[in-house]
């Protein structure tokens, strides 16, 4: 187990370097960001040169990348164009996005798995068909439509919630945005769980458990569900990274000042430091989430052993 984890951690190093290099190059290809800082006029050449020097943009790309990586290892992610250190931006943005992701994941787990179990056990019944239809609709409607619709209905028409999230972004404010963010994944979780449950219901070990005379709820939770959750856990694990980085649309609609907002602004202003910094952290989150998923397999299915 320990050796497996170490091997996995070592594998992260090339992935990490490759991902940062790619992002670094991509942002760089977009050209010189200083030109966008002076509005609809030419920056005066002396100030522009001075700014480029300050942000290290006057050196060749490979040198910029090496300096940047060197700084990253000492915990310095550079400075955004408005003079704020990127670490400061991260300190305000990540907690907000993490809260939003937690809300979304909770929705996926609670609603998604419950619906999946219910429909999986009652295959072909009206409740199954109903949920199937609903999930189809949810998957096919883009997030911004669901988001704007809920915002308009709940926020403006009925006045149940405030249409935008305050800068504090507390958990209760994030319930509706979290639901919107989770909606598509939630539908996938439902369908994944349903298929898995329906398949395993007919397997030998379930029949044995029933034959032993175990109570129904124990058969379902201990035997059926535990074994059926493996694909679902994989999905939710990879979804953590996707939700954190992919919340741009939801964050814009509900005015949440999280990672998506910072990334969006960083890209518009071609701020290499912000974009690379945030993506680097997202890559790390993705890698760690994947490792945790793999370790969870062993917990769910004792037959899986890591050496």
């Amino acid at each position, binding site marked *: 187990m320990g050796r497996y984890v170490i091997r996995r951690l070592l594998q992260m190093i090339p992935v990490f370097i490759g991902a940062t290099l790619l992002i670094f190059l991509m942002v760089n290809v*977009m*050209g*010189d*960001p*200083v*030109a*966008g*800082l*002076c*509005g*609809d*006029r*030419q*920056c*005066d*050449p*002396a*100030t522009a*040169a*001075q*700014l480029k020097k*300050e942000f290290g943009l006057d050196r060749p790309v490979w040198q910029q990348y090496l300096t940047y990586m060197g700084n990253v290892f000492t915990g310095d992610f550079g400075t955004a*164009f*408005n*003079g*704020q250190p990127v670490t*400061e*931006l991260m300190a*305000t943005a990540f907690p907000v996005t993490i809260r939003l992701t937690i809300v979304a994941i909770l929705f996926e787990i609670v609603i998604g798995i419950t619906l999946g179990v219910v429909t999986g056990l009652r295959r072909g019944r009206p409740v199954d068909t109903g949920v199937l239809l609903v999930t189809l609709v949810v998957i096919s409607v883009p997030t911004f439509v669901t988001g704007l619709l809920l*915002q*308009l209905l709940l*926020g*403006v028409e009925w*006045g*149940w*919630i*405030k*249409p*935008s999230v*305050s*800068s*504090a972004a*507390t958990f*209760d*404010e994030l319930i509706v945005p979290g639901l919107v963010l989770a909606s598509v994944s939630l539908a996938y979780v439902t369908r994944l769980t349903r298929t898995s449950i329906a398949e395993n219901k007919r397997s030998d070990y379930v029949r044995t458990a029933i034959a032993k005379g175990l109570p129904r709820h124990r058969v379902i939770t201990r035997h059926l569900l535990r074994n059926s959750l493996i694909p679902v856990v994989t999905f939710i694990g990879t979804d953590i990274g996707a939700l954190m980085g992919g919340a741009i649309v939801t*964050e*814009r*609609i*509900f*005015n*949440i*000042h999280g990672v998506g*907002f*910072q990334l*969006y*602004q960083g*890209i*518009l*202003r*071609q701020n290499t430091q912000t974009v690379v910094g945030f993506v680097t952290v997202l890559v790390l989150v993705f890698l760690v989430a994947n490792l945790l998923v793999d370790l969870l397999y062993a917990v769910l299915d004792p037959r899986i052993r890591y050496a």
Partner: protein
Amino acid sequence: MRGAPHATWVACAAALTLVATACGGGAAGSDTGAVLSSSWGDPQNPLEPANTNEVQGGKVLDMIFRSLKKYNPDTGQAEDMLAEKIETTDSQNFTITVKDGWTFSNGEKVTAKSFVDAWNYGASLKNNQKNAYFFEYIEGYPETHPDDGSKQTAETLSGLKVVDERTFTVRLKQKFSSFPDTLGYAAYAPLPQSFFTDHAGWLKKPVGNGPYTIESYAKGSQMELRTWEDYPGPDKAVNGGVTLKVYTDNNTAYTDLMAGNLDLVDDVPASQLKNVKSDLGDRYLNTPAGIIQVLAFPYYDKDWNKPGSDKVRTGLSRAINREQITETIFQRTRTPASDWTSPVLGEDGGFKEGLCGDACDYDPEAARKLIEEGGGLPGGQVKITYNADTGSHRQWVDAVCNSINNALGNEKACVGNPVGTFADYRNQIGDRKMQGPFRAGWQMDYPLIQNFLQPLYYTNASSNDGKWSDEKFDRLVDEANAETDPAQAIRTFQQAEEVVRDNMAAIPLWYQNGSAGYSERLSDVRLNPFSVPVYNEIKVS
């Protein structure tokens, strides 16, 4: 405001522990007087007066600073604010006297030194101030800010001298009669000593001499401004303060306004313009602002700078149906342009409706003829280059192209050429890569006709992106700047503008309006010529 039964108090209770004002609508009426909330965008640059060149940062500076002059929100005229008198005999040497009794909100007196130090800071290359060129007319600028990037040889401008506590002199490198009228721009604001001694601390919480003080500033999300009770100026704020909230999307701000969660939106999204009348009624403002949109041309490209090109440009201008585009796409938030300035200048300030004459009138017949006489479109097609990331440029560029295509009876006469980001767009312009007409917007720095002409069309001027150059125009501008009689100066500027027209150096499209919507709690809301709300006059009930 709609009733928000149960969920609101839950949200408020939770938010109270963190930010008391988070409960927008309901929490007004405390001791501090009523505070209004207003939409905001994250300023792009640090909030220093000589480093702020966009409207979001400018909004804050407008609230926390007062300069020698202030532009009247109605007429745009420069009026004395901190200046007791500005005297000159030759339009080149100015003696400026600062009014007595002004202080910064930290108690420090505003003196001649506060101005001279601030201007020296703004002009010095090592401080990276993006508005440094505002000081280029002052003697000694090349030494503090060498353009070729060589080392600066002076820390201070030799043309600035403190005479006594309230007087200083300015010596310009050339005659510039309207120089005093430029002094209302934020870059010329005075700065307290703490700006220089504790710069990082000042940036965290800027201190100025305006009607508002900054109570708290959470970068990227919110700024709380409170009325400064001891403000010595004549334009004291009548409300308790302003909370500026950063919105990532102006649609969300508008939705918040509809839900009674926000008091003032000063940028109504284009997609809502159709509903805004029915949503807000007379709580919607649509007033002229000092912004003009034009199509500039690359004069470094031989195809656009040969005999007859002026006819092609005029022909294109006549092929654009400005009336129809401003009506259908912008819902009258823009006005068809008929000169190269802006209505906010007023007749006396140099705005002359119809100066463009026939050349700006839609006439497909004449357009076809002119383009044919001028040798046809270079390469048989024009590409209008624009940045696609902001400001709904795509819609109007497509509409302009449609209009040209219809007028010329050729489906391929004009196409749009989008560029992904604004920075990339500016880069391509800087690298002289434009192959045809391109979008050029101009928001005035100060309401003077000079500001609409010189930076855009003077040889090698800072915003002369097409590199147009005309001796006659340059000579007339020089003459106008040296003219001591303001009325005569404006007439000379208008003659220079006629040179622009005769060459059709750039096609004027439309004047842009400022738009705003506000909640039922507010009254006396209006926008100044810079399309910024006049916050200090807003009453909150």
